[in-house]
């Protein structure tokens, strides 16, 4: 599948934004975060900024962005529509909770706890809807499986906690608990990614050139002549394929930049303080940003669509 930059930016940025928002609200509810106004303000500001930037970029690749509101109408059947509805709904409880946490930190009432809980669920559901857009596409074997929603939720939380860790370190409120959570989530995400790749390398779509043409009973089927001499929309959009050696290289980049380096530098912050800890925590953010964007790129580039079977692919 063709990796569109706007969609990669959208899922990476808004994923991290929802992860951070989730942790800020959850952390405040459990009273494990600093109550400093500017720390919380930058945290909420950053998370909403990432979410809004992501959502806006996702409308850039539309043919008719001015009609984007129509995408909110078909939530009964479409995960894309559900995602749009959830994304907009989520602003309400999380925004209310953020205002309360920032301006009335003393007034932690039962109602606010309820709103906070709704906000937590809404963040998770929005990310889940994003994942289900992909996981519900049966023709793409690499996406239509249980690994995908788990991965989106896990990576959203992991990038969120790496951001939170960076934010706390920069503002002088480094927290061992958050750093510890970050390393733990990095391990889980890394293991999940390895499991996903293992799955991907070991299976193929049940559809084959034989089932695509229905000619299997006459022998093995391969494309003789494409319908046309030039690449068409289908081949550019769905037939995008990455060379094996490139994907191996990119996987190494994902492993190193996305998981190993952030894990090492965050672990090292346990043993240092001052400027060095700030630098290391920020390095984790940058590295994870690059690594997870590469992960998203590969998520598209490695996915094969059944339409390839009509254009010479041996499997999908």
């Amino acid at each position: 599948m063709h990796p569109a930059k706007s969609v990669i930016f959208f899922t990476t940025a808004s994923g991290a934004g929802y992860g951070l928002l989730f942790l800020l609200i959850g952390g405040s509810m459990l009273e494990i975060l600093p109550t400093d106004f500017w720390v919380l303000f930058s945290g909420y500001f950053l998370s909403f900024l990432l979410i809004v930037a992501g959502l806006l970029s996702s409308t850039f690749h539309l043919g008719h962005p001015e009609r984007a509101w129509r995408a909110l109408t078909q939530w009964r059947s479409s995960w894309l529509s559900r995602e749009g509805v959830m994304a907009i709904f989520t602003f309400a409880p999380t925004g209310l909770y953020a205002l309360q946490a920032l301006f009335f930190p003393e007034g932690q009432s039962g109602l606010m706890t309820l709103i906070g809980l709704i906000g937590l669920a809404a963040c998770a559901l929005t990310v889940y809807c994003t994942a289900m857009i992909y996981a519900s596409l049966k023709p793409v074997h690499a996406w239509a499986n249980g690994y995908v929603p788990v991965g989106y939720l896990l990576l959203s939380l992991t990038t969120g906690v790496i951001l939170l860790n960076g934010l706390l370190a920069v503002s002088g409120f480094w927290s061992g608990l958050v750093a510890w959570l970050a390393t733990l989530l990095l391990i889980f995400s890394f293991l999940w990614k390895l499991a996903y790749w293992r799955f991907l390398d070991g299976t193929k779509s049940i559809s084959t050139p034989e089932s695509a043409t229905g000619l299997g009973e006459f022998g093995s089927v391969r494309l003789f002549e494409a319908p046309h001499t030039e690449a068409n929309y289908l081949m550019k959009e769905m037939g995008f394929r990455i060379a094996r050696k490139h994907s191996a290289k990119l996987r190494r980049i994902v492993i190193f930049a996305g998981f190993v380096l952030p894990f090492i530098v965050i672990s090292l912050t346990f043993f240092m303080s001052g400027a060095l800890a700030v630098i290391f925590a920020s390095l984790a953010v940058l590295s994870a940003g690059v690594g997870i964007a590469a992960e998203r790129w590969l998520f598209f580039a490695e996915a094969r669509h059944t339409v390839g079977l009509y254009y010479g692919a041996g499997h999908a």
Partner: protein
Amino acid sequence: MTTLPKNPPKKKLGLVIDLDICVGCHACSVNCKEWNSGGHSAPLTDTDPYGADPTGVWFNRIHSFEVDNPVDGGRTVNFPKSCLHCDDAPCVTVCPTGASYKREEDGIVLVNADHCIGCKLCSWACPYGAREYDEDAGVMKKCTLCIDKIYNPNLPEESRVPACVSTCPVGARSFGDLGNPESDVSLLVASRGGYDLMPEQQCRPTNKYLPPRPKKLGGGKTDIQALTPVADTSAGVIARWVDKFLSA
């Protein structure tokens, strides 16, 4: 409405494509392009049509497949493909705007170009690659089963069939109601063992394909040997010339 019709259409208009007699002439796709360039989803935009890298929207494309079989030598099969107007059309249910819809009255799957936001998700959801995005118009396009031809009262009765069906010089394409078991197309499908493409994708396509008829083995069998290849191109010019000379 993006959900599928509540009452599954009783009438299911669709095509039956006979792979035994299709000669792969591309006439149906050319006439499809011609009719639809002025029809319901017009225009079918081409970019760089006379240049080095022409590309554009087509609703019907003709593939050719080689089917390898050591027993009878296999065969080449021409394979036209357009939207199959599926019963469980995933392209319809994924559409966030309701622009993609399936008609209750005849099962035809269409795109409302005034509502489509061009998110392309429906083209990802179709396992068959039957939807093509129009970069120029910013909306998705697809086979309409010539909705503006088959119901057109200005045309003579016999012309009210899809453009591809009117034009096929060998009669490899039939059009009719596949929801009615007594219709000509349904009887044809039953008698020839018509089948669905990729049934495992569970879209329940309306269009059916008729398989090539079995080869007649035995009778006309000759002892013609398959050609043996001359030296491959990696050999030098002289070596190839010598090889040709010696094997003459």
